[in-house]
């Protein structure tokens, strides 16, 4: 517990010093502001340059479709920002020999790994909540129509929080395995984008974490029985990968 608290505080200080909060905030929240405005403005500016059928498609955006567009963009850009900002989560600690002193003072690897994971999960979840609420505010001001409500937005944000918690656990584990953080970052990115392809296949998609994203965009039907297996599997992945990361950090030679 002592290691956890000490490392949690250390993570907060380090995130401020390395501007990680700022980068994650930009990567998640900025698009919540920009997306609805671009959707509103682009058709106006491009009105005379687009073929009529495409122009009609642009002008028929409702609050629901604007929210779905934001979700899609958040997945594509947010994943990129998270993967590259947090790619060196554990590998940097080892390669920059930051663990020599804490380990020599009796720091517990479990405390170190858990502090890192919980700190960034809470941070990302908080930014996701801010982004979703901001986007809801903007969409309500700029678009009409659709059934989007604050309840739907909050449900959807919960699924995104869980998805990014899974992604973070994969990043944490890979970062403990690989010496170079960039490889962990790219692997997570490729994995995140590739798994989305499986959302096309009804048989397997409910067993993969990317199904959370599909359901988050399924306005009106977000929480249904098909999510149970996905949520259970997501939590299992998180627990297993955090556990394996702790095991790995116990074995690693920090000197």
């Amino acid at each position, binding site marked *: 517990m002592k290691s956890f608290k000490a490392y949690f505080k250390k993570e907060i200080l380090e995130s401020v010093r390395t501007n990680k909060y*700022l980068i994650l905030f930009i990567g998640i929240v900025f698009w919540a*502001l920009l997306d609805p405005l671009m959707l509103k403005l682009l058709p*106006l500016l491009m009105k005379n340059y687009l073929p009529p059928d495409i122009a009609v498609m642009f002008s028929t955006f409702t609050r629901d479709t604007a929210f779905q567009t934001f979700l899609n963009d958040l997945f594509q850009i947010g994943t990129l920002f998270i993967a*590259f900002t947090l790619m060196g989560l554990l590998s940097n600690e080892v390669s*920059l020999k930051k663990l020599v002193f804490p380990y020599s003072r009796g720091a517990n690897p479990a405390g170190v790994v858990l502090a890192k994971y919980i700190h960034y999960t809470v941070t990302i979840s908080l930014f996701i909540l801010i982004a979703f609420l901001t986007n809801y505010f903007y969409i309500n001001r*700029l678009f009409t129509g659709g059934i989007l409500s604050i309840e739907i937005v909050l449900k959807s944000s919960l699924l995104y929080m869980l998805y990014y918690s899974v992604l973070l656990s994969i990043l944490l584990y890979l970062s403990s395995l690989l010496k170079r953080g960039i490889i962990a970052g790219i692997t997570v990115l490729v994995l995140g984008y590739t798994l989305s392809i499986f959302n096309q296949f009804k048989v397997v998609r409910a067993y993969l974490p990317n199904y959370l994203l599909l359901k988050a965009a399924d306005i009106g039907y977000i929480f249904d029985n098909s999510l149970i297996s996905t949520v259970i599997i997501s939590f299992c992945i998180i627990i297993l990968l955090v556990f394996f990361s702790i095991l790995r950090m116990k074995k690693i030679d920090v000197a």
Partner: protein
Amino acid sequence: MIHITVIDINFIITEILRLLPFFIPIIIIQYGLMIFALVQLFKNEAAYLPKWGWALIIIFINIIGPVVFLIIGKKKEIEND
């Protein structure tokens, strides 16, 4: 053939003016981040590129430029030792 009428232009300008307040937070974030990244660049050592190269990236590539600098462009202290 593209026809832009005076009515179209007036409508577009009116719409842009109506949307202007929504752009204020975006402009604040964008320029705030650019200034912050430039201050960081001049206070710290730069990695991979000379400082003027990073300055160009920060100024001319909106949002992504400052973020890329903050992620990979700032030299880590331990590397400096």
